[in-house]
């Protein structure tokens, strides 16, 4: 006999989605394998590395520590949804590329989601606030120096964009 399935409705990157999942299905697996949004990565499945970070109603969460059924009806943003409404790259995405803040790119979606929320709450963070803000995400490639640089650069780009509007 198969497992009992639960119907859930999520709004993912602004799009209403429906799927049926077993109670134990992790949100990370639901996003990746049921909804095909493979940009969210799984690096440890015990909530330490931060690769699976997505925004749940705007707040960063570990999707590998979240059961999909528990977020029924909620809004989720993944890396696939970070672009600006006009399809251009977000300041955070641009800054990561400009600053060479990624190498293999596996941890990057988690950092991008984390930093997007960080700068929304604190548009001009100090060095210490940046380091603190990204201290829940592991990166094995970059040594973090260029990630810190990218966060400041993103803050700068956001400031410029606001100055213009």
């Amino acid at each position: 006999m198969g497992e009992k399935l639960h119907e859930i409705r999520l709004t993912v990157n602004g799009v209403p989605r429906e799927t049926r999942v077993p109670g134990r299905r992790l949100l990370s697996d639901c996003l990746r394998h049921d909804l095909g949004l493979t940009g969210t990565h799984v690096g440890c499945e015990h909530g330490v590395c931060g690769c699976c970070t997505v925004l749940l109603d705007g707040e960063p969460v570990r999707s590998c520590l979240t059961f999909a059924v528990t977020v029924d009806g909620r809004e989720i943003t993944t890396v696939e949804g970070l672009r600006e409404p006009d399809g251009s790259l977000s300041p955070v995405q641009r800054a990561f590329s400009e600053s060479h803040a990624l190498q293999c790119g596996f941890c990057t979606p988690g950092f991008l989601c984390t930093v997007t929320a960080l700068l929304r709450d604190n548009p001009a963070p100090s060095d210490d606030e940046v380091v603190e803000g990204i201290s829940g995400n592991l990166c094995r490639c970059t040594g973090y120096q260029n990630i810190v640089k990218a966060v400041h650069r993103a803050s700068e780009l956001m400031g410029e964009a606001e100055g213009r509007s």
Partner: protein
Amino acid sequence: MTTKLFGEPVQRREDLRLITGEGRYLDDLGKDALAAAFVRSPHAHARIRGIDVSGALEVDGLVAVYTWEDLPEGVRDPLPLLIPHPALTHGRTAYPLARDVVRHVGEPVVMVVARDRYLAEDAAALIEVDYEFLKPVVGIEEAVQGVHLVHEDVPGNVGAHLVQEVPSPGGAGAREAVDAAPHVLAFRLDIERSASTPLEGRGVYARWDADDRSLRVYSSTQTSTSVRMAVAAKLGLPLPSVEVIAPDVGGGFGVKIVHPWPEEVLVPWAAMLLGREVKWAEDRREHFISSAHERAQVQHVRVGFDDEGRVLGLDVTILHDHGAYTPYGIIVPIITATQLLGPYRIGAYRVEFSSIYTNTVQVTPYRGAGRPQGVFCMERTMDRIAAHLGLDRTAVRAANFIQPGEFPYDQGLIFQDGRPLIYDSGDYPKSLSMLKELIGWDAFPQAKERAAAEGRRLGIGLACYVEGTGVGPYEGGHVQVTSDGRVHVSTGLTSQGQGHETVFAQIAATELGVPLDRVSVVTGDTRRFGYAVGTFASRAAVMSGNAIALAARKVRDKALRIAAEALEADPRDLEIEDGVVRVAGDPEASISLATVAVLSNPLRYAFDEEAKRATQFAGPASMDRPPVEAGEEPGLEGRDYYSPVRSTFASGMHAAIVETDPDTAEIRILRYAVVHDCGRLINPMIVEGQIHGGVAQGVGGALYERMVYDGHGQLLNASFMDFLMPYATEIPFVETAHLETPSPLNPLGVKGAGEAGVIPVSAVIAAAVEDAEGITVDRMPISPSELYELRRATAP
């Protein structure tokens, strides 16, 4: 105008897909594939008495269960010993699924295939394996006693034993030279285990096409060509029927050069047998207990030196813990043994190592691959000599440096590639003066004193290294200009985040004179390039970089020949700029590379307007010559290989200032400085990124990371909760300066930069902590509690 691209900090071309979630890593592929999971040994050493799979059969969605008994010939055989060496007298490799005996926690015993991973794990959990416990051998010193054996037929647990000796110029042996020296020191050093731990684990996904009997395998590997050969051989398939592709790979750092992993054989085999796509993606615990570790060594050093600190004799004995199996041979300890000498000219040198079996995860190269241990040994030795003589630590190093005029410098040893250890170029005195300047070496004593007056403890340390990079045997490159003017570059080695798509495009664009955005690069796909070795030993830029440059030069020559004919000009008068071939000084006489590509391929059938130019009635042609002349090929493309006579030798020096807390013994790195010489820089932004990442891994290895085994062979910290990989909060800002001494060995003058950052870090931090504390540091990593204990042990 074509921008100069070689040497420029060009933005990475791989970034766009990776920052938008459009990368394709292994587990992003094969949405409908069956999932594999493994039952792994919970014991470090045990005999399998029986396996009861009946419980698993109840699981809905179960497709298959396999034990060693189920595997056919070829698949069931031990995995290959990849790098044989005469000194490896007792090499042993694992079976893909354990046969009779398990030799480390995590060894695969049963393979389960099910509809999805959850169900496969459900089934795996219901399989019962009956084990008879055997005594585990844990820890290098217990292992060398040889009382209990990891492999019954390997006496003393010794897999390999090797001695290399270089006598002094006067002919004295090292031991003799040490004994005759005015000063002699003898001591022991210890380094613990760490591991690559890329954020993406291993993984493999296989598709068997039953209609044309071909197999496509995706693997998160550092060598797709070699996985292909191994899989074809194991499964008895013709090589052309197997293709292996490394998709986007989430970090490697060495662990993914090992192949074929059990899963790389079993998953394709199961896919063939079942006629279904099968995938396995490693989870984090599996990566800790079932892949590979590195670093652990015990070193016994005797050194003799004169009053200036010049080393007259050095005698090192190394015990190297290689875990339960030796698929990668003795590469790690032989690199330690040979790279230990660093930038120094040593009077007489003797090195002896024993590579020892233990009931722990196998040891294979992790970024640096034995060099961090060798540098730790040499640099701790230099610091001890300085302390003994009361000399400045930089002065002792300078007294031993090989001088710029002495290259090529033959160290008299045989390197890891079986070739002589001859340094190609370098400038160590300049490197040291740059480092002293960058960190402020000479002014530090005053800063230390001022801090001391405030009750703070500061210390400074440095370490030097030479890194053999760009080892052979070869890599190849293929460059093709298509009739749309686009340039397609491929090479067989793989990428794990190094930015190869960017730097190889820079090289091809520079050589061909085309805009960068017209060049695309494919790596690690055997459909595009079948001959390759792999990505390891900081070799990609040297090997594939030069191969691509040579291939691009062939294409350029051919383009100029064809263009010369079309323009009725002398090829020597032509130049290529911005994708257009021009007669120098005559802007009217030009032809685009796209058109040259059309003309390079004589056609009967036109497929578009442009192609009409190459058809048989299109224009004047010599009726005496065939359309494709002897020795020519259709198409504007070229293939070439780069195979070096021996390795290049990059070098560098690092220094750090640390502060230790008098109460808590916490160690903080206040400054970290790097002087780096990897020959000519292709892309300084990418080289710096490699250094930053390497230093971060080095800091992890120096202060935080270790594999903690208990006496039963259980890895106690097999998770990111307990294995302390550094976050941003632990990593210092790295200040870098570059020195460029081009390699005379290859056309581009490059040396390779991938591993450099990690190599000297443990030695640097040990030296700085020692300077801050005035306590000898002879084992790494060092935690606050260990420093606290050291203080207690040495307190008067």
